[in-house]
């Protein structure tokens, strides 16, 4: 029978803290990104070769894309936004690897997979969303100083005061929106692949795998682009 679980399942404990299967996969994604980073920067040279060249293609493409979106603030926000993009895209695609979600052990009542895509866990996406929204406030305060708080708290003008209150609500709803957009897309993709594989294991899942590759890329792009656009908006106040 199909095994679909909305929450990530705990597979071990480190002391009192539970280790879920998506946490295990997150460590795997971290290892992949770390190895890529170390391998490409070990011997930095002006004439790049092999790994450094590929990483330069990716980073240069991202940099030019974000500079068209954001403009002159790209130098400040590029590390955050590019890290979000790379982490999310590797996480999304790692959920499609063979063995993720299928290899596991049978607890007394249900099947527990050993690995699960990191972004298919609501905890991870809420964490990423909170990082993005806190980064918006951080960059706002860093560039504009204390005048940035005039966006939210405005005592002189009652209309602007109400608008400030709505801005606070809007920023809180951004957390929910970011988290559920990413979680919903990736988790629904996993459910879709499971159902397709259950119905017809051999030919039918292929177009859906291609769809999931594309969706993984688009969701990473949308998350990082929306973060950069909102940071741009929060930096535009008072300028």
């Amino acid at each position: 029978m199909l095994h679909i679980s909305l929450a990530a399942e705990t597979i071990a404990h480190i002391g009192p803290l539970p280790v879920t299967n998506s946490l295990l996969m997150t460590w795997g994604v971290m290892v992949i990104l770390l190895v890529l980073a170390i391998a490409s920067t070990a011997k930095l040279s002006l004439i790049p070769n092999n790994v450094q060249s590929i990483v330069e293609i990716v980073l240069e493409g991202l940099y030019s894309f974000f500079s068209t979106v954001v403009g002159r603030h790209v130098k400040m926000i590029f590390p955050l936004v590019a890290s979000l993009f790379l982490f999310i895209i590797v996480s999304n695609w790692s959920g499609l690897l063979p063995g993720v979600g299928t290899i596991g052990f049978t607890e007394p009542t249900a099947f527990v997979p050993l690995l699960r895509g990191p972004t298919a866990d609501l905890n991870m996406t809420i964490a990423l969303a909170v990082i993005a929204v806190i980064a918006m406030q951080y960059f706002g305060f860093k560039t504009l100083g204390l005048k940035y708080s005039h966006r939210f708290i405005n005592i002189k003008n009652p209309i602007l005061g109400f608008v400030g209150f709505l801005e606070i609500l809007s920023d809180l709803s951004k957390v929910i929106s970011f988290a559920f957009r990413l979680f919903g897309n990736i988790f629904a993709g996993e459910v879709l692949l499971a159902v397709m594989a259950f119905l017809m294991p051999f030919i039918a899942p292929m177009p859906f795998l291609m769809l999931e590759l594309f969706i993984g890329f688009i969701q990473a792009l949308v998350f990082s682009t929306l973060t950069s656009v909102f940071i741009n908006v929060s930096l535009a106040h008072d300028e």
Partner: protein
Amino acid sequence: MDLDTWRLIMSGATIAIGGIFPAIAIGKITAKAVEAIGRNPESASDVRTSMILGVAFAEAIAIYGLVTALIIKFV
């Protein structure tokens, strides 16, 4: 009718009804974007970026409906 029957019906109805307006919205956004590219082919890349952003916002609403349907069915 008992709870399981209601869960089954409502999980299907949630995503079916919740997907109507996002689908219309995405169609309208993409239609306007394509029209804008047709009028001004030089701005194609800017228009495309804004379109992807707009489509992501509209699709998020459908995703909220999908997540609610999954919660109704499995939790």
